[in-house]
């Protein structure tokens, strides 16, 4: 039983970070229809900027986090302007390749600036463990789940309650109608990329604080795909549910089955969902019109 609870803890914390990263992905897709293969690298940039702020420059975390978010937002805006704007209306494969190219640029850039050796971990999350009876729950994971939950709730509220959030949803639904109502589609695109970068950064900061800062963090971004497909490409609650499910499933398979199977589980889930219910658990079925 203790094993189960511990695995659940680890699974939840990974799942929460996944959900944060996936949220940014869904955001960009909903608003501008772009598939962002560079989401993992946004995570990476966030982690490294935070590391630079907190470990290299020695700033306290309440300055480091806004600094990282600010850098990420600027990055998101620049990317939207220089790479995505010229590619509006291009074929899906071109946009996919553009974001893949972008991911290489970011990955290479981070390595050029910081080198490839793993760096010292920013010690911002509390260490030690919370002991409940026989169970040891590492504090950093518990706090990570709480922070992620807060961030996810904040974003959900933003989408449903705030004006800008609703504007984003409007543009995702029907660009032309949104334009006629007076919503600036350009601003919405920029905003969605900036927000996506911000969520990825928060996820990156959490990830770096738990496991350390290394270029391999970007690999986390690949698992985002099973999450969004499972949850539904255009559904925010779906993403959260998808992230949690994949995180838990991976942890359980790793703990109870082993043999490295946990690495491939997200992709098997992905294939199954595509066969059975391609729009995901919460996604909307699209009818293709000619």
């Amino acid at each position, binding site marked *: 039983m203790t094993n189960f609870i511990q695995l659940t803890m680890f699974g939840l914390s990974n799942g929460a970070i996944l959900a944060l990263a996936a949220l940014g992905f869904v955001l960009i897709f909903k608003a501008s229809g772009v*598939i962002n293969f560079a989401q993992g690298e946004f995570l990476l940039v966030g982690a490294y900027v935070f590391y630079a702020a907190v470990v290299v420059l020695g700033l306290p975390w309440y300055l480091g986090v806004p600094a990282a978010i600010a850098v990420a937002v600027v990055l998101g805006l620049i990317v939207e302007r220089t*790479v995505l704007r*010229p*590619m509006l209306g*291009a074929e*899906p*494969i*071109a946009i*996919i*390749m*553009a974001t*893949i*190219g*972008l*991911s*290489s*640029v*970011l*990955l*290479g*850039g981070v*390595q*050029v600036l910081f*080198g*490839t050796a793993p760096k010292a971990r920013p010690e911002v999350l509390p260490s030690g463990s919370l002991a409940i009876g026989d169970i040891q729950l590492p504090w950093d994971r518990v706090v990570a789940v709480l922070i992620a939950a807060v961030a996810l709730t904040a974003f959900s509220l933003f989408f449903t309650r705030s004006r800008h959030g609703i504007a984003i949803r409007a543009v995702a639904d029907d660009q032309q109608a949104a334009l006629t109502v007076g919503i600036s589609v350009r601003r919405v695109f920029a905003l969605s990329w900036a927000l996506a970068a911000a969520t990825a950064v928060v996820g990156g900061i959490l990830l770096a604080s738990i496991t350390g800062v290394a270029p391999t963090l970007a690999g986390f971004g*690949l698992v985002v*795909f*099973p999450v969004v*497909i499972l949850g539904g*490409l255009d559904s925010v609650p779906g993403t959260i549910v998808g992230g949690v499910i994949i995180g838990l499933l991976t942890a359980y398979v790793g703990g109870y089955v082993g*043999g*490295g199977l946990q*690495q*491939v589980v997200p*992709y*098997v889930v*992905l*294939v199954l969902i*595509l*066969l059975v219910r*391609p729009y995901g658990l919460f996604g909307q079925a699209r009818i293709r019109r*000619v």
Partner: protein
Amino acid sequence: MTTATATRTGTYHRSYRSDQRLVQSHAARVRLLLALVVLLALPFVLEPFWLTVACQAGIAVIAALGLNILTGFTGQISLATGGFLAVGAYTSALLTQRAGLPVPLSVAAAVLVTAAAGALLSLPALRLRGLYLAIASLAAQEIIIFAVRNWEFVTGGNDAISLPRLELFGFVFRRDFHWYWVILVFAVLAVVTARNLFRTGAGRQLMAVRDQEVAAEAMGVDIARAKVTAFAVSSGYIGLAGALTAHYTGIVTWERFTLEVSVLYLAIIIVGGLGSIAGTVYGAAFMFLLPAVITQTGQRLQSSYPSLIERLPAIQIMIFGLVIVLFLILEPRGLDRIWQRVKGTLGRWPFRY
């Protein structure tokens, strides 16, 4: 016969026979002949480092052709190139090593097996399109690599399979010089057959599927069959490239067939030009020459900037990404289009248009 003026205004034909030729104009024939001469001369003038690059690029042409057939001509995005290369390589390696099959047979078998695997894997993918297909192929790639790394009984798992040097009729293919000819023959064959494929009805059906699937279906094209054919043919080419890699390098490890490799091949066909056979060749040459040139430049600059050598791979990654992004923004139809524009300008000169 083309019109005999210094400024060509077009390619005109006066007989069906000349219209149906593979190479359509006199100038193109000359260019092709020159290219052939250069290719035949290369191994005698190139230094070993560049000859290795040439051999690697040659094999890449074959795989990239396969991918272009699938993605450029049939419109099915695939991130699973690495996985199919692995299938081809391991099949050929295992048949040679464990079943004692002579190499040419094992290579042929690898092509067939990979084509079958491609056809099989395409069945669940028939319903998917665009992004979903891309993601499904990503999943397939990761699953194939996982299977290779863990199916130890068959593939040796994480360990590399070591193959002896290729030996045909007592002649040992030891150096790049020897392999160059083998690779050249296969590459030329692959290019010619691919080019021919799209002059046939079957090839046109594939392009119809890419352009407007619903209209194609309305016209009587069997979409499912066309897609499965595309996957099978494409996988066959990729399997051939994989088998050649296995025997050329003599080492088969899963590390050669990762997602990065799939991305590289997508980059090759985008940079070269989607839906263009010649573009595939340009793209492969470009994407293999570029890192080699960067490495060599880095080595030369090493004495002035010693720390550069540490950053070199990261710089290569950045330049790789930049090349893709710049091509997509500035010339999304790739090197092939650039070459067409150059030809057009030259042909029309001194007129502008």
